[in-house]
């Protein structure tokens, strides 16, 4: 097998699609979230409040029922109150400089970073992992936290006409908009949020906002527009530079300087983005841009809004805050009459030169649909991509992506570029390549486009009568930079036979489905016009057959499904055998079918403690391909359910006596922590026997419900596998200490080491006194696996359970194992993972999931040593996480403190 074949084989080993209902669930949840979002961004004055209140009501409903109810002691607030205040309050005053800077559209307060005096409570306390955002342009506040949110809003009017809005957040995720028209907003966090009109200086008494906790006293809100918030002052370093003409060295006054985000994906492409366009600069092999001024031969967008912007003074100097936490960022300089300058990272006091620009060519125009109709789809989805060579850098190729305006117009300044290619692309339309000549000069260019946003048409029968309820399935090509997959959309015709399906790309195939009519499959679908379909009625055929077992005896009540093979549409007809094992269907649309028969699994899988099946169940499946012809009967199909292996055995108690009516289930175990698949279940017969017939190859678990444990069996071919169960049991108890303290709430698992190689696992946990116990434990040798969640450390041992009762006192070691990495220190905070290699007597191979082998994790504070406490004696591998190149060492831990060196 070649490497490519192997790759292909590998690729096929993972399923393509999730469980049936998962797609619908995700789409529904996602759309609901987006619908909330749409509602939240509508410019309605009160919608945000109403919506937040709705969120509140929805969540409060649940909370009120729970013991934890933050509103139990809620104070009553005035009529403006939408909901009661929560417990605890604090506020942030508005940042004056931010208020007056019209170009900063976002104020961003990162959790944990904002601990200035304006904030009474550190944000990290308030929003674990959350971010607060203030979108100035729309006058709205959006709050994001990681978890479920409860949002409460109190609106209060003050005597000067200002409005204070109190937001109460508890534990969660939520989107809240405060729409107060032109009222400026400020943001605070935790449970109460005070929003103040920062333009009005003064003090407001907010003592009405009562606090429920003693620690958080009511306080005043101070508003001081002239003083910038100290948050930025203290934390953000300044970035200074000078902009000069590259040719003459003259300072350029009034140039705009700001940060834009840049993404450097691997070795090659740079993407500079700003709200209106993106600039890609690619290079085939490598591209070093650090410290180098990158000249782009065009003006990306003269109107672009920089995230943080300053203007140069008469001497060409500028100063702007240096943005933190940005991995890669460009400084961009834009001056009238000059090319924009990009600088990866300038020295703090360095100069930022820009060169002179001659505007040679400007292209603008508007996009209209070919038919002259109104464009469907949105301008935001449409881009104009300009590909060009970079003068002086023959190896480079750049491209400029411009998002079209809302009216589908575009306006690009091409600077010195002569040789360019244009591509217009939009989500719902064909790409359109345009030649340079078309775009030369300052012409208004009207571009023809082919409409691929929707497919519409009418479905009729041969007499021209419209057909309602026809399923129309459309497959279209997905359009994305990183994917070439397909979209599937469906629509149903209305009473007039009309359908309208979203396509989001060129249509590949249309399939129709309607009872009584031939399935339509169309691959040539013209774009941009209605696609009408005529369906012909079909004459159906019939099917007859028999289901038998391996000895030829009929199987009654078997499931038979006739599955029609088709492109796009797959239909299954469900049939059932009668007492003679016969099945029939008289009304099947013609075509190729797969007929699949299997015994009735429902009875076997019932959760009733005594299923009907005693002793033996069949779980085999048989199938055959048949062709159904119009108006004819296909008969004599015989499906013999044979094949597969037999898993059988006897249940005996401790005295060796067979036990009847013991429930045994066959599982397809998921050893990696997922759901285990139940295949069949039965009860043992009078002799204590059980048998599962027709078991396919693979690993199965015979689960003995009475004992609560299982045995693994590896099934292959058609042989018999004897798995006897039962046997003598005992009670296994233990108590877990560390030093003299009991270890509470530790997870305790025991895994039986079977002779045949199975692993029989049971789970328990310690109580507050460190005690745990397992009843009815089969006798044998076990791996004991205890996880202490407090320290995230695992203790492993071997125990023998041989008598009626086994009691164990387990003293967790307090020895300290030190890993010394000082030979080559690592950054503080680096993690080290300890994984099990071998403990004598423990069958490592049976601890299948890799996660079972993770014993402990440690973090270094000084970058030189890691300390692990309570590691059981054994052979381990210690590996540093996130360190390149990988570093690990194998260590042998014994019952004493020891230090190991990791080079």
């Amino acid at each position, binding site marked *: 097998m070649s490497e490519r074949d192997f790759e292909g084989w590998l690729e096929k080993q993972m399923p393509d699609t999730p469980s049936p209902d998962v797609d619908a669930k995700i789409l529904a949840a996602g759309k609901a979230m987006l619908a909330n979002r749409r509602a939240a961004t509508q410019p309605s004055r009160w919608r945000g409040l109403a919506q937040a209140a709705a969120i509140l009501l929805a969540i409060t409903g649940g909370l009120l029922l729970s013991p934890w109810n933050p509103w139990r002691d809620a104070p009553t607030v005035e009529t403006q109150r939408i909901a009661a205040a929560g417990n605890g309050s604090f506020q942030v005053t508005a940042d004056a400089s931010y208020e007056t800077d019209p170009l900063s559209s976002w104020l961003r307060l990162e959790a944990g970073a904002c601990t200035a005096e304006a904030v009474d409570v550190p944000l990290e306390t308030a929003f674990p992992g959350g971010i607060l955002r203030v979108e100035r342009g729309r006058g709205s506040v959006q709050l994001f936290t990681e978890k479920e949110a409860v949002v409460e809003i109190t609106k209060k009017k003050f005597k000067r006409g200002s409005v204070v809005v109190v937001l109460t957040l508890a534990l969660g995720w939520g989107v809240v908009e405060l729409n107060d028209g032109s009222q400026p907003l400020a943001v605070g966090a935790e449970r109460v949020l005070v929003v103040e009109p920062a333009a009005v200086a003064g003090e407001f008494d907010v003592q009405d906002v009562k606090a429920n906790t003693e620690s958080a006293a009511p306080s005043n809100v101070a508003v001081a527009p002239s003083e910038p918030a100290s948050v930025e002052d203290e934390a953000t370093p300044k970035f200074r530079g000078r902009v000069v003409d590259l040719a003459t060295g003259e300072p350029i006054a009034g140039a705009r300087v700001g940060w834009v985000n840049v993404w450097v994906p691997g070795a090659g492409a740079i993407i500079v983005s700003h709200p209106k366009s993106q600039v890609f600069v690619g290079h085939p092999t490598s591209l070093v841009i650090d410290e180098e001024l990158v000249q782009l031969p065009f003006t990306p967008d003269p109107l672009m809004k920089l995230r943080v912007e300053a203007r140069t003074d008469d001497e060409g100097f500028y100063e702007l805050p240096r943005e933190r936490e940005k991995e890669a960022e460009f400084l961009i300089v834009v001056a009238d009459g000059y090319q924009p300058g990009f600088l990866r990272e300038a020295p703090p006091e360095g100069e930022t030169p820009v060169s002179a620009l001659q505007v040679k060519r400007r292209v603008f125009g508007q996009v209209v649909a070919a038919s002259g109709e109104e464009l469907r789809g949105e301008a935001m989805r449409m*881009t104009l991509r300009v590909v060009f060579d970079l003068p002086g850098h023959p190896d480079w190729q750049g491209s400029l992506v411009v998002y079209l305006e809302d009216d589908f117009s575009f306006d690009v300044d091409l600077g010195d570029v002569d040789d360019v290619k244009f591509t217009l692309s939009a989500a719902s339309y064909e790409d359109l390549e345009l030649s340079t000549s078309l775009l030369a000069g300052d012409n208004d260019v009207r571009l023809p486009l082919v409409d691929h946003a929707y497919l519409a048409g009418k479905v009729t029968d041969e007499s021209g009568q419209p057909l309602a309820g026809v399923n129309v399935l459309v497959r279209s090509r997905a359009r994305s930079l990183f994917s070439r997959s397909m979209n599937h959309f469906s629509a149903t015709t209305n009473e007039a036979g009309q359908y309208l399906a979203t396509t989001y790309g060129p249509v590949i195939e249309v399939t129709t489905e309607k009872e009584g009519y031939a399935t339509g499959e169309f691959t040539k679908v013209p774009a941009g016009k209605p696609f009408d379909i005529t369906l012909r009625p079909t004459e159906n055929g019939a099917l007859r057959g028999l289901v038998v077992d391996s000895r030829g005896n009929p199987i009654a009540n078997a499931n038979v499904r006739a599955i029609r093979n088709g492109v796009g549409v797959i239909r299954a007809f469900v049939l059932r055998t009668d007492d003679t094992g016969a099945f029939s269907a008289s009304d099947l649309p013609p075509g190729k079918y797969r007929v699949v028969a299997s015994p009735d699994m429902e009875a076997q899988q019932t959760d009733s403690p005594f299923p009907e099946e005693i002793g033996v169940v069949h779980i085999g499946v048989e199938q055959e391909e048949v062709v159904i012809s119009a108006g004819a009967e296909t008969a004599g199909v015989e499906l013999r359910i044979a094949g597969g292996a037999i898993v059988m055995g006897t249940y005996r108690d401790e005295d060796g006596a067979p036990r009847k009516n013991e429930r045994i289930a066959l599982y397809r175990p998921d050893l990696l922590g997922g759901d285990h698949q139940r295949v069949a279940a039965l009860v043992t017969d009078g002799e204590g026997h059980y048998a599962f017939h027709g078991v396919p190859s693979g690993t199965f678990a015979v689960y003995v419900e009475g004992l609560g444990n299982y045995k693994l069996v590896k099934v292959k071919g058609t042989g018999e596998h004897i798995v006897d169960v039962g046997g003598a049991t005992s009670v296994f108890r233990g108590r877990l200490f560390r030093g003299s303290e009991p270890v509470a709430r530790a997870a305790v698992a025991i895994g039986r080491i079977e002779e045949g190689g199975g692993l029989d696992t049971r789970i328990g946990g310690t109580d507050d006194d460190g005690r745990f116990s397992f009843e009815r434990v089969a006798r044998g040798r076990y791996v004991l696996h205890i996880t202490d969640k407090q320290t995230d450390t695992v203790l492993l041992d071997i125990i023998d359970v041989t008598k009626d009762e086994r009691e164990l006192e387990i003293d967790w070691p307090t020895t300290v194992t030190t890993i010394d990495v000082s030979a080559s220190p690592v950054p503080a905070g680096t993690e080290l993972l300890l994984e099990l290699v071998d403990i004598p007597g423990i069958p490592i191979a049976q601890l299948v999931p890799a996660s079972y082998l993770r014993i402990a994790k440690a973090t270094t504070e000084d970058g030189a040593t890691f300390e692990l406490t309570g590691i059981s004696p054994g052979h381990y591998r210690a590996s540093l996480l996130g360190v390149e190149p990988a570093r690990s060492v194998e260590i042998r831990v014994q019952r004493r403190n020891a230090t190991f060196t990791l080079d």
Partner: protein
Amino acid sequence: MDDTTWIRALRRGDANAFEALYGAYRQQVYRYACSVSGSAASADDLLQEAFLGLLRNIDRIDETRPLLPYLLQSVKHRHVDRLRSFEERRRPLPATDRTTDPEEVTSQMERDESRVIVSDAIAALAEPQGEVVRLKVYGGLTYDAIAAQLAVPAATIRNRYRAALNHLRQLLGRSV
């Protein structure tokens, strides 16, 4: 449509964009989740968490970065989180009774078997190697995209991938 446009559409609350984006990336994300977790049920959850997490964080993500690597990374992180929680590592056997119809059982069984074997084998590779295989084969990322995600030069990724394939073939020798 490129990712930036999608992100913007999502920020505006465009449900159609979500459907299209889900359609475009679902397969890679799901297959990658299977390869990471080795379990179809876990992969279902990871898939859901990745996409809904994207919506939840839509205002925070960098719109200049491609989405697929972002989605894959969030699958990875969530999977690691799940492993850390003890319940996930050690779920008792009869935790769920997912009865399926027999035909699906059989055909799914063969696939499940190799899925578990393959994801185990990948997990047995030295970690950067295994991750490269998952991202490349199941996540559908290019070498460059993997390089950007793992912050390693593309040439190194290519070499690791080759080495990983060889190693995997040895591990899987009998099954292939």
